[in-house]
């Protein structure tokens, strides 16, 4: 094991190398580029035996990935924002065909009124697609999750692709301490890829022809069931990783100081780190604050969440994107899960388009949740850091 001070993007490149991925098609887009740049360097220096394919657009890149995975080799790609959106059509080819491609999405605003900076509105819409989706908090987790992603995705109970999301710039271009595991430890942790189906003249198959209505529903049910099965596998892999490498992430989500909390925040991505610091501050003041680091949007840990928060008076949800005029997506999912409960729920939208999320804002968020616990708020949705009146 080697310790380096590297960015999340570099950490991902290490994760890909250690996972012995074989085919990497990619197209550059800020803030993902340094992932594929480092991978290309590894390959050019003969340190990583893989094929890098410079596809001519993200749509083609995902098509190449699907083709390679169907051909039976471990495949990786990365994108962000507009690039992920351009891949959208082809994203749908992977889950239903049970192709365990791993994609790292460096979260960046999608669409207009945007630039290259952090927002979650690129990956959130893709949670409909059948891809598993996890959000990491720091650079170490980014590396670790690439390795775990292959083990989870390639498990025969799952065989679904995984999107590992990491916050643009805040992680992708920020250096931190990262422990790079030894290759042979990873080799013992990550088995070889054994596909469910392969395009091969050894055993010819007809794969994904047009599917008439008579068969489609059963195929969707299988997909649904596979996503459901992934919960168990995610937990198992998290524990196995902790045992081998000494780092555990709690599986589908991680609770922090939640057991005796009165009010808490659900957060995903880097906002979690700031939230943790504020929880500690509040606890030092004698306030019963708690935190849930939501990791997986898909599969969504509904039952586990309901159980974990059942004792709370108030729960705030942090959203780094909006579903226009319909709250943030994490809020709608959480609220749907908690439809039976009496907990006071609030949606806290912030950090859109790369707006810096400061600790002051996080304190503000918790103070609103605390008010909500005391029954002192009618308002459900708060935009933090917005200039102007909130209607």
């Amino acid at each position: 094991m080697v310790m380096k001070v590297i960015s999340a993007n570099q950490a991902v490149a290490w994760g890909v190398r250690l996972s012995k991925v074989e085919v990497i098609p990619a197209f550059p887009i800020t803030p993902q580029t340094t992932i594929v740049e480092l991978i290309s360097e590894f390959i050019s220096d003969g340190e990583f035996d893989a094929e890098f394919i410079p596809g001519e657009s993200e749509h083609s890149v995902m098509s190449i990935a699907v083709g390679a995975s169907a051909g039976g080799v471990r495949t990786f790609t990365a994108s962000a924002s507009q690039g992920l959106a351009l891949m959208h059509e082809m994203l749908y080819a992977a889950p239903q065909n049970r192709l365990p491609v791993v994609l790292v999405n460096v979260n960046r605003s999608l669409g207009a009124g945007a630039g290259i900076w952090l927002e979650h509105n690129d990956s959130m819409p893709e949670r409909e697609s059948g891809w598993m989706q996890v959000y990491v908090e720091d650079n170490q987790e980014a590396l670790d999750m690439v390795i775990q992603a292959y083990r989870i995705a390639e498990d025969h109970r799952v065989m679904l692709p995984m999107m590992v999301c990491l916050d643009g710039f805040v992680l992708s271009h920020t250096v931190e301490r990262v422990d790079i595991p030894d290759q042979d430890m990873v080799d013992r942790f990550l088995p070889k890829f054994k596909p469910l189906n392969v395009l091969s003249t050894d055993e010819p198959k007809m794969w994904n022809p047009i599917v008439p209505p008579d068969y489609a529903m059963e195929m969707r049910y299988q997909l649904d069931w596979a996503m459901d099965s992934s919960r168990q596998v995610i937990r198992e892999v998290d524990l196995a990783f902790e045992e081998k490498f000494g780092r555990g992430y709690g599986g589908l989500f991680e609770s922090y100081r939640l057991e005796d909390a009165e009010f808490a925040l659900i957060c995903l991505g880097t906002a979690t780190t700031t939230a943790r610091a504020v929880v500690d501050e509040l606890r030092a003041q004698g306030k019963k604050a708690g935190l849930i680091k939501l990791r997986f949007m898909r599969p969504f840990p509904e039952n586990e969440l309901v159980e974990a928060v059942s004792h709370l008076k108030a729960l705030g949800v942090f959203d780094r994107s909006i579903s226009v005029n319909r709250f943030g997506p994490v809020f709608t999912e959480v609220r749907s899960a908690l439809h039976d409960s009496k907990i006071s729920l609030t949606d806290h939208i912030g950090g859109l388009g790369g707006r810096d999320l400061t600790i002051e804002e996080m304190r503000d968020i918790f103070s609103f949740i605390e008010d909500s616990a005391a029954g002192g708020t009618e308002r459900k949705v708060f935009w933090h850091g917005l200039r102007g009146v909130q209607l």
Partner: protein
Amino acid sequence: MAAQTLAEAAVLEGYHAQAFPYFGAERRGAPVKAFARIDKKKIGIKSQIYKPDMLVVLDEMLPDIEPIAEGLKAGGKAVINTPLAPEEYDLGISVECGTVDATTIAFEKLKAPIVNTSILGAIAKVQDLVSLDAIVQAVRDKFGDKLGARAAALNADAARTAYERTRVGRCKGEKPLAQRAQWLPAWEQMPQGGALPVATMGDMVVGPGSSWQSLTGTWRTQSPHYSKEKCIRCLRCWWSCPEGTIKRQADDYMKFDYRYCKGCGICAEICPADSIAMERGVKEW
């Protein structure tokens, strides 16, 4: 298209109507299904029809390959494109039938085996909701838009002629409904990931190279008569057959597998030695 024109005719008669095909890609000659609903009030159902009051059969061979009469109500009616009289035609379910040789009428009036408009005339004969006049008007309107006044007149004429020639009676119901080889697995039984190897599932073969179970020879309205004595073994028909159903023998003569021949006529055209002649009807030699 026939279903749509029928719906339009029904609307001319003052009814509410709905028509739609079994949605699929453009394909000429293949078995297709279409549905029409007619009612005095607005129609609230949008699904396919499983228990029709009337069954319209544009290809008389269909009952041999598909259980098309399934669900036809006991007091219902059928209209069939066949030269046979109703009493001679076996639909599998005995109901009041109108039969007419719509193919011959289509060839007469339109020079092509497109039977939609002719069959509409037959439909007018067996029921009272939609009259011949309404149908003829709807046919005129439809063609007037797209293909011109002459086409409108020809097609209207085809409908009227069919009406006149339609014989009404009761068709036979002796033949058992066609059993299609089927595989309708539960989700747990379906191989994962949308891929199938060569395999037997249910009572059919699936996967690569399994299309031979679809007997496309039932599509044809004319058949190639091969005269081996005239054949010069140039192999052109073997090359040119879109179905691959002209089989090259070891001695380079041909064997025609009529189970799949769609009757396109390319082989007869391409043969330089006049050893293939197209004859009307579904024939084999």
